[in-house]
């Protein structure tokens, strides 16, 4: 009896100690982040992040078009988007061209992505709630805004996991994100519409940025030989 239990304990010990040996996997923290299985390779993680970003960008493009159509049907012809708060550059300067991105490090890329993602979570949720109050809003627009707000939240979690994995840093909560997101409440219908439109319009750009950064990051991490970057 004792022999078998000792043997079992030994086997269990050996198996458990083998886990960290398998390289480039992510240990599952308490909260379930990027998938149901506890060990996921970096490749898959990056791939999923890129897919999320591509989907979000695609949805944002379509949302803008749908919003334009809706405005046309309302009779609002030209909603001028001033370079207001939404589209202004964020607290951390973001690289602007391919050459700049080539010179930037992984750390910067990841941080930029995280800043962007964390900035947009709240406005998207607000817009989704506000869109419900419109009359004759196309259901496609509602669906897409729902999808965007849910996917960006899971993307944020994925980015945190990536930062932990690639950079080895702990959980990051960047300050300053709260300041710029002012809760905009106005009773004027036009102002509300203008704000919602600016959110969607500006988010489209940032979604494209996020997608591009993540694609480049994936290229650098996974495919170092073929990647012309860097």
């Amino acid at each position, binding site marked *: 009896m004792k022999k078998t239990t000792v043997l079992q304990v030994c086997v269990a010990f050996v198996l458990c100690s083998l886990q960290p040996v398998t390289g480039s996997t992510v240990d599952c923290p308490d909260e379930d982040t990027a998938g149901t299985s506890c060990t996921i390779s970096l490749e898959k993680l990056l791939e999923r992040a890129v897919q999320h970003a591509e989907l979000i960008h*695609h949805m944002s493009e379509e949302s803008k078009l749908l919003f334009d159509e809706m405005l046309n049907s309302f009779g609002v012809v030209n909603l001028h988007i001033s370079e207001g708060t939404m589209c202004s550059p964020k607290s951390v300067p973001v690289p602007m061209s391919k050459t700049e991105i080539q010179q930037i490090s992984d750390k910067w890329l990841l941080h930029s992505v995280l800043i962007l993602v964390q900035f947009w979570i709240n406005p998207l949720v607000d817009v989704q709630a506000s869109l419900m109050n419109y009359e004759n809003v196309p259901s496609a627009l509602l669906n897409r805004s729902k999808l965007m707000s849910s996917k960006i939240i899971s993307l944020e979690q994925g980015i945190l996991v990536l930062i932990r994995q690639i950079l080895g840093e702990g959980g990051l909560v960047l300050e300053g994100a709260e300041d710029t997101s002012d809760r905009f409440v106005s009773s004027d219908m036009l102002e509300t519409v203008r704000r919602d439109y600016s959110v969607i319009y500006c988010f489209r750009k940032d979604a494209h940025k996020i997608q591009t950064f993540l694609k480049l990051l994936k*290229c650098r991490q996974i495919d170092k030989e073929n*990647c*012309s970057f860097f």
Partner: protein
Amino acid sequence: MWRDAEQALTLMWLLSWISHSMCHSSPGRPRITRCRSPEKETFTCWWEPGSTGGLPTSYQLYYRKESSLEVFECPDYHKAGNNSCYFDKRHTSIWIIYNITVVASNALGKAYSESVEVDVMDIVQPHPPENVNVTFMQTTNSPYFLVQWQPPHDADTRSGWVTIKYEVRLKIENSGNEEDSNWESYSAGKQLEFSIYSPQPGANYIVQVRCKLDQGLWSEWSPSAFIQIPDNMSDTQNAFMIIAVTLMVIIFLLTAGVLTVKMKPVKHFFLPPVPEPKISGLDTQLLKSGKAEDIFSALITPGYPQIAQRSDHQVEYLVVSDYDEEMDFNGKAHLEFQKGENCLTDTITLNSSQDVRTTLSEHVYSGAVSSQLSATSGVLGEPQELLPLDCNGLPVKAQDQNTQMSSGSKCEHVSINPAGLMGYVEVDEEKRDQTPLVGEDYSMVTDVISDKILVLQDSIPKQGHKEVKCDKTFKAEETGVVFEPLGYLETLTTFSSGS
């Protein structure tokens, strides 16, 4: 009149000269027509000049980036042709808005175009794919042709900076037809080749490819590639298939027709019907529901011997035969009739002339009856080797009718061989008296078939029935009663005294 004409002419000449000299003015407003970026790293803008005002006019393009006020001038006016401005990689920033203005200026003044706001990510339109070629692949079962191409040389797909998607379209070239055939478009995803299956033999195809970067605009269609499909692709195969299918259809129709016409014989051939014993006149419905008298009243036909006449007698009809004799079995039916415990003699009417095949012996009262009827109609094999046995296994030879009649017996074993002939034989006491076969009067005997059977004058001997009684031993010398009914052979049910 001439003077007027002269005046008019000079006036006109003056006016034209004046207007010619007065044509110089400040230039008209130029207009920016489009801006494009082929790979999201550089971009070009083109404009259209307004009126020149008659003087040499120069154009400048100024731009301002989104949040700064600093104004820059176009870095390269020549690379992209006339009236264009080319922004190279160093000067291109993505995700910010350029505010672009074109200024036309000449000696007399300047004209500003309308400002245009441009974001590079919105104006992406790649060059068309390169080196499009088509090859025809002839495989035996599914011929197809393969379209292959290369991405435009300036798009950076390797690093993931852009994701490129392709679209293929093709159409059949109808040089003779007036009507235009339509293009068929297929999305090819990110791959660099595409297969088109089942092309029309003998047709000329035109193939083009175009591409798109991320969410940008589609490129122009590439230059056409042509291919000619050979003619004789699978004619023989098609013909063979057609012939085979036609043959199968014909065969199917024939079998269906044969089946419908000859349903019954075919059905009998495959599923031979189970012979169902039946006595004509015996209604099975009555059996289920009726009483015994009803049933047997149905059995009684005018031709039958009248039971009623003999109701006061206990009548017994016996036919005795010996089965190990050879019999002449033309048109005979054998009926072996065996009784169980009760051993009431049952007589059975058989209308063997008509229903030889389907006669049934039925045991009316309780008791186990097994009947075996082998029906023959003209042909029988050997005589059945049925040696009638008594209960103890002793063969029965002959019987003393009288003694048997009077007693109900158990374990009767009656084997009946109706000759299939007609006539009705009854043996009763009276008759028995008339036929002193016991050994005294042989004058009526016309033939002896076996050592057990005597044929009397007025009947045709065929066979005999045997009735075995268990509790009596038999005297072998007694000959069997003869009956050969002429037309059929029957045994009647004997009613015991208590019937």
